């Protein structure tokens, strides 16, 4: 069965979406990530979408849902690598990607996520937002 791999790197879960996802696969990724967050007690989720040539409302909603669920599970989400044409299209489509932090590439994304985790307190004790 198709599955998008989720890697644990330090305090983070790393996902790189490399294929044109159909909606069921996007839903499965959302569920898998939530489960892995609980299992690994990771504090961050980094989603690399540099290979995606489209983000429509469904994928946008999936990204927002992941960020919201991660937040509830005391983890920060950063989306990296959005292609310029995808960004232009998203804005015209009217999507705002609520609750999602973005960075240009994986390096900057990891740096951002680590800053966010540190600002939040190592054990999540400072999680008042």
């Amino acid at each position, binding site marked *: 069965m198709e599955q998008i791999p989720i890697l644990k790197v330090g305090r983070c879960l790393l996902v790189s979406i490399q294929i*044109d*996802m*159909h*909606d*069921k*696969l996007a839903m499965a990724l959302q569920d898998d990530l939530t489960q892995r967050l609980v299992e690994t007690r990771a504090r961050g989720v980094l989603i690399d979408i540099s290979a995606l*040539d*489209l*983000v*429509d*409302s*469904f994928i*946008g*909603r999936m990204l927002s849902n992941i960020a919201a669920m991660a937040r509830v599970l005391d983890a920060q989400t950063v989306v990296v690598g959005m*292609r*310029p*044409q*995808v960004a*232009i*299209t998203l804005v*015209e*489509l*009217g*999507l705002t990607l609520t609750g999602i932090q973005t960075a240009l590439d994986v390096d900057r994304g990891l740096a951002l996520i680590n800053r966010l985790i540190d600002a939040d307190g190592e054990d999540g004790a400072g999680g008042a937002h």
Partner: protein
Amino acid sequence: MQVERTSTLEVRTPEDVVKVRQEVRNRTAAVGFSLVDQTKFVTAASEIARNTIDHGGGGRAHIETIVRTGKRGVRLIFEDQGPGIADIKLAMQDGYSTGGGLGMGMPGSKRLSNEFYVESALGKGTKVTLVRWKSS
């Protein structure tokens, strides 16, 4: 207006939506759309293809290469035999949704197209036509 080429795809499963996206990508690239314009129209197609499944119970997509007064473009026609849209004006408003979505599909797709038409009758289904021209 002249239709140079048509292909028809079934739109019934989430995998079919991906196939529609790929065909629209190939067709807009072949006509010479810029990468931004390709992405806009593929995204519009994805939204309407999903509506065809979620609201129309599945249907068909006709993907056409067209020529009008020397301009080339791509026309997409999505047809279903579903329940139809009760109030098209309402369906075209940002944020209006009956399917639990974000309500961005119809108005967003219209913004991503040069021409956008909806024909629908209750109990008889819906036909959505999208056109985007190659920018000169």
